[in-house]
């Protein structure tokens, strides 16, 4: 499958690590807890925004239901993250990884937005498969290992099964959309 810009969160993180010279010490950027929190909230918000576009554009009932679930679930995760940050007195801190994510999301949206009908549905679901694969990879290799606070780490670990379920759901839709071609 061709990969559009911004599809691999981990590659973005690794690119960031290379550009900051931290790859020599570790294969991932060295993020503080406030930065990890910001990356997590940004990653969820990106998926919510694209789902809102899909909700308003798709005519496919299953794709619309998927988009609704993405909005519901990623909003719930962000609400928990915000509540935890408030409890811990942590202010999510903007950083180069979050900025890279937003840039990638903007490029991906620009590629999907002009499409219509089945082409739109396919591009959206392809993006969701790739995005969730990348987010799960980044959770395992970058975000969880970088997190010091036990409660923040637990939240990241707890949301992983939801992202896996989203990925499986998206792959199922991807198969159905491919078969309907």
């Amino acid at each position, binding site marked *: 499958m061709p990969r559009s810009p911004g599809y691999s969160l981990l590659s973005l993180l690794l690119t960031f690590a290379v550009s900051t010279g931290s790859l020599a010490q570790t294969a991932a950027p060295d993020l503080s807890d406030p930065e990890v929190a910001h990356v997590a909230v940004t990653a969820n918000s990106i998926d919510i925004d694209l789902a809102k576009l899909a909700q308003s554009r798709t005519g496919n009932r299953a794709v619309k*239901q998927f988009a*609704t*679930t993405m909005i*519901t*679930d990623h909003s*719930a*995760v962000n609400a*928990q993250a915000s509540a935890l940050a408030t409890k811990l007195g942590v202010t999510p801190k903007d950083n180069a990884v979050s900025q890279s994510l937003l840039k990638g999301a903007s490029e991906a949206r620009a590629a999907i937005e002009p499409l219509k009908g089945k082409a739109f549905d396919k591009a959206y679901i392809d993006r969701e498969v790739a995005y969730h694969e990348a987010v799960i990879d980044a959770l395992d290799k970058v975000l969880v290992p970088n997190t010091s606070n036990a409660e923040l780490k637990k939240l990241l670990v*707890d*949301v992983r*099964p*939801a992202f*896996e*379920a*989203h990925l*499986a*759901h998206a792959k*199922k839709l991807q198969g159905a959309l491919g078969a309907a071609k």
Partner: protein
Amino acid sequence: MKRGSRRFAGLPIAALAAIGVLALAGAAVPPRPTELVPQRHIVEIRGMAFHPEVLEVRRGDTVVWINRDIVPHTATASRKPGWNTGPLLQGKSGRHVARRVGEAPYFCELHPIMVGKLIVR
């Protein structure tokens, strides 16, 4: 005085008779076996799965789903028209009384890859 004594003496006999009747009545209706009293079963939703995934119940039993996940879930009958707990937020629960004997597959409407099954005896 004599009549009063007779009446007084008769009361315990009547009371004993009443107790005897009640005891006999009780003996005629044996206590309901525990397994026939409708039971309450708990299905926990955690880690994007139903635990247990397959649950055997008796007709009339109540199944309660409790959502332990951050994200909302439903328990929705796969066969239509059917029962549906509706969206359950974290920590909330929904219930269903099993009325029909047989297998009752169900799923989460929000996450269709999550499936479970009731086996109603």
